């Protein structure tokens, strides 16, 4: 056991899952929690150091603490299909990323990502691949115009807002979900429902997946 912060001989995955569970629930849980926190801090420090600018030490400590609270509250849901430490780090990564995304996007409103009314000048022709031959360009334009019409006819404003924010604005799902009063999973399903609906409508108009793929191959 080492108490060196960032040391290389910290207790890593020495316990079995059963031992972790027993220790985290038992009379010596303080030591087990300390050991688990060290693992979370080390994992977060490494994975965030390559993805986040600036001093991350205090952030990592906060994320590890928040994750520990969740982990300890959810020990009963651990099914033992992975190592407990992998499961715990999964939760820590989710906690960290959720918070980092929230902070990064906190000053950007959903409305900022929506296009201004494009009016009659909008034309999918500008999207066709200039390298494609005239026939392929015509097919691309026809498909894009059809998709645009089907979107207007079949999707709700809520679906269109979500799609524009995620696909156009690059806003993370969970941030969009929070602004729209839903959650990440429900938002994914809302967009999936929209894609399925449009795929069905395209098929009904005689456009298959293969047609679309072929038209936009390398485009």
């Amino acid at each position, binding site marked *: 056991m080492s108490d060196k912060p960032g040391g290389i001989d910290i207790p890593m995955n020495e316990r079995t899952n059963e031992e972790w569970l027993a220790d985290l629930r038992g009379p010596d849980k303080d030591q087990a929690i300390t050991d688990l926190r060290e693992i979370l801090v080390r994992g977060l420090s490494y994975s965030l150091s390559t993805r986040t600018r600036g001093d991350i030490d205090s952030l990592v400590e906060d994320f590890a603490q928040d994750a520990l609270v969740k982990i300890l509250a959810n020990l009963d849901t651990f099914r033992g299909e992975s190592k407990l430490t992998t499961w715990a780090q999964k939760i820590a990564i989710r906690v960290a990323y959720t918070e980092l995304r929230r902070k990064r996007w906190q000053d950007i409103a959903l409305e900022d990502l929506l296009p201004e009314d494009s009016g009659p000048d909008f034309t999918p022709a500008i999207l066709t691949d200039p390298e494609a031959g005239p026939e392929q360009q015509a097919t691309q334009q026809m498909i894009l115009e059809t998709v645009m019409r089907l979107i207007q006819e079949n999707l709700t404003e809520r679906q269109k807002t979500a799609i524009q924010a995620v696909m156009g604005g690059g806003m993370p799902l969970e941030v969009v979900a929070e602004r729209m009063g839903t959650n990440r999973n429900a938002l994914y399903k809302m967009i999936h429902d929209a894609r399925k609906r449009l795929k069905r409508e395209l098929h009904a108009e005689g456009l298959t997946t293969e047609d679309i793929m072929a038209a*936009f191959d390398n485009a």
Partner: protein
Amino acid sequence: MELNAEVLKKMTRAIASTRDEEIGCDDCFEFVDIFVEAKLQGKNPEEAMPLVEAHLNRCANCQDEFEALLDAIKATSDDPD
């Protein structure tokens, strides 16, 4: 509201690759630790867990977290490659 032009193109590609059966972020999160361990053991989780693989390919947020978890596990593993 009309979607802007680039989104329309991305959406068209996304529609083409849409499957009736896709898992959401919650199910992906449920299994991603098993997926990561299999990956690090040199197994082929993409074949064993195709719905997780498909979700990771489609969802940038889950993909980011998967890659971060992969790095974190490598950094805390007793038996690094």
